[in-house]
């Protein structure tokens, strides 16, 4: 009997040496004549332990980590293929508190399975949602998604079922499903983990969306910064075509859904859905005026569903287990689970999928273990570069769209970036203005010119020049951006800037 050893192929694990570890394991096993089956799985999302390798034993999968190539001979000496004792042995993977306390619905398979193995996917509840969908009416599929309470995980939190319903009810010979895989927000990597770690769940979700609204063509708009996800997606798509899960006759139903990955080219604004469609059409990524809504007139002027990776990857479990099952997780009007991403200066960075409602404090300390530097956490930015900075006094806010809105903050795509007390918040505010300047599509004057002015004003403030005049000027600029921008790039840059100013005035030279 060969022994199965798992070494993640996730980019973050690879960035810490997982490929070298896999090579070392294969070489030593060959030299010692051990029969090993090496599986490159996704990551379990506990990145302080990566590269985290696992071995299948009769008691379950045993984890070792973090492992460097140098550790591999010692692991063999300790009989790790039998789950042997070793200083880096972590015990059973699924008993690790960080993992065990989670509610993994969307991420149910990630880290367990071989991402590009279709048999692995199907054996682990894959394609059950599609099977159900194929026996349902379109209206019933949309109703299941509406009943689940799923709201878009890309940032705007718009109810997914309502969007699908509009596309379903807009007659047209050609409709499209677009997966927004531009994942530009710093501090986020959940889309990447899904695409690299369980690509079939995204393909299945998009296929169900296509069947639900009568769209026969799907595009995944993937950022160029994710070359590994590109390879994995293309491999999985090719397999899905061969197995009749994509193409002209999906599982013998006579229904069609085709899918193609398209690459972006390093423009943050192309994550905005109308800019994304311009880009897919081969143009500059200028944001479009709305209306018309993409659901009515989107890609090439046709009705189009645009959804985030996590939104679409949550559809299969909803169709498998029912809208009610998903809706029973969460709090208030934030239903289901959110894959939170803990990043920045944090001891235990990683992916934590849980029903909405946990407080920031629980995430930062119970899961995250505080700052990596061992210093106090001073600020966290939630929801990407357009999200507000929160001080410690707001750490008891539960993760919930409405609770965040009430404190002038956003949950966004669920990224949390942690800063310790060495951060200078005026520098961070300056960076936000600079980012807006670099990434502005240029369509509106406040965003294009205002961000350049914003950088200059922040430079003056940082140098302590004329604060009496420059602080009000900064507030005025933010007002103009808030009220005079077509999209959230200009419209929300004031969130990080003003939250930094309001919560950390001492960094701006103001006596609190």
């Amino acid at each position, binding site marked *: 009997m060969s022994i199965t050893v798992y070494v993640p192929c996730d*980019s*973050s694990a*690879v*960035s*810490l040496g997982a490929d070298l570890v896999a090579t070392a394991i294969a070489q030593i096993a060959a030299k010692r004549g051990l029969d090993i089956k090496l599986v490159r799985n996704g990551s379990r999302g506990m*990145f302080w332990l*990566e590269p985290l390798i696992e071995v299948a034993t009769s008691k379950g999968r045993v984890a070792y980590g973090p492992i460097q190539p140098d550790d591999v001979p010692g692991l063999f000496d300790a009989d790790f293929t039998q789950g042997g004792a070793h200083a880096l042995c972590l015990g059973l993977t699924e008993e690790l508190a960080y993992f065990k306390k989670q509610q993994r619905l969307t991420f149910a398979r990630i880290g367990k399975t071989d991402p590009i193995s279709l048999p692995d996917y199907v054996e682990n509840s894959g394609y059950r949602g599609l099977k159900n969908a194929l026996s349902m009416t379109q209206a019933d599929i949309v109703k299941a998604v509406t009943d689940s309470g799923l709201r878009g995980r890309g940032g705007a939190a718009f109810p997914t079922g309502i969007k699908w319903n509009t596309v379903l009810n807009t007659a047209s010979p050609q409709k499209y499903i677009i997966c927004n895989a531009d*994942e*530009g*927000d*710093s*501090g*986020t*990597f959940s*889309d*990447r983990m899904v695409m690299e770690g369980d690509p079939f769940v995204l393909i299945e979700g998009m296929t169900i969306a296509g069947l639900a609204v009568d769209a026969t063509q799907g595009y995944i708009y993937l950022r*160029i*910064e*994710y*070359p*590994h996800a590109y390879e994995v997606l293309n491999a999985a798509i090719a397999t899905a075509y061969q197995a009749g899960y994509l193409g002209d006759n999906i599982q013998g139903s006579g229904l069609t859904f085709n899918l193609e990955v*398209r*690459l*972006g*080219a*390093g*423009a*943050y604004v192309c994550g905005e859905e109308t800019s994304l469609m311009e*880009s*897919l*059409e*081969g*143009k*500059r*990524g200028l944001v479009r005026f709305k209306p018309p809504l993409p659901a009515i007139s989107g890609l*090439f002027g046709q009705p189009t569903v645009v959804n985030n990776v996590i939104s679409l990857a949550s559809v299969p479990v909803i169709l498998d287990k029912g809208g009610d099952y998903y809706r029973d997780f969460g709090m208030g009007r934030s239903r289901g689970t959110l894959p939170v*991403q*803990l*990043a*920045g*200066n944090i001891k235990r*960075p*990683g*992916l934590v999928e849980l029903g909405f409602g946990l407080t920031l404090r629980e995430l930062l300390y119970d899961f995250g273990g505080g700052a*990596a530097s061992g210093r106090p956490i001073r600020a966290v*930015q939630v929801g990407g*570069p357009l999200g507000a900075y929160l001080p410690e006094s707001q750490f008891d806010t539960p993760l919930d769209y409405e609770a965040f809105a009430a404190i002038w903050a956003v949950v966004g795509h669920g*990224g949390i*970036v*942690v*800063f*310790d007390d060495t*951060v200078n918040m005026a520098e*961070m505010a300056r*960076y936000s203005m600079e*980012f807006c300047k*670099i*990434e502005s599509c240029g369509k509106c004057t406040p965003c294009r010119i205002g961000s350049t002015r914003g950088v200059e004003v922040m430079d003056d403030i940082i140098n302590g020049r004329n604060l009496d005049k420059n602080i009000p000027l900064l507030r005025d600029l933010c007002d103009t951006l808030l009220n005079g921008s077509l999209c959230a790039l200009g419209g929300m840059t004031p969130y990080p800037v003003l939250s930094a100013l309001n919560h950390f005035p001492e960094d701006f030279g103001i006596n609190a």
Partner: protein
Amino acid sequence: MTESGTTQPTVQEIIAALKDKPGALLPILHGIQDTLGYIPADCVPDIAAELSLSRAEVHGVISFYHYFRDTPPGKQTIHLCRAESCQAMGGRQLEEHVKAKLGIDFHETTADGKFSLEPVYCLGNCACSPAMQIGKAIYGRVSADSFDATITTEASA
């Protein structure tokens, strides 16, 4: 049509293979940059003609996207993350080190032509900040020392 002795497709072949896709311009530009490392200005008239666009339109698209370049890069391109999570883990100091070590600023290429340096705004490796990419290879928890070691290996590769 293929030049003898080369396995790389020519610009004309790339355009011909992709021009019938809906929204073909970005796939074509990617195809050219993948093959040549950049998009030479003399490709623009061909692309424009095949897609029935004006040269200005094609040029406008190339210049809109940060990733596309119209000058040849160094042998290796280093994409260094400047975004928030990496800043929280010492990214600003690393950036200073990288620029000093290579003797160049962002958007420049070293005099020996070995490295180009480009900023990037998140590589999705924020759980292992600070992060960088060299070619398609990704690196996490990059320190000044690990950076020096990596480029020494890459330069001799």
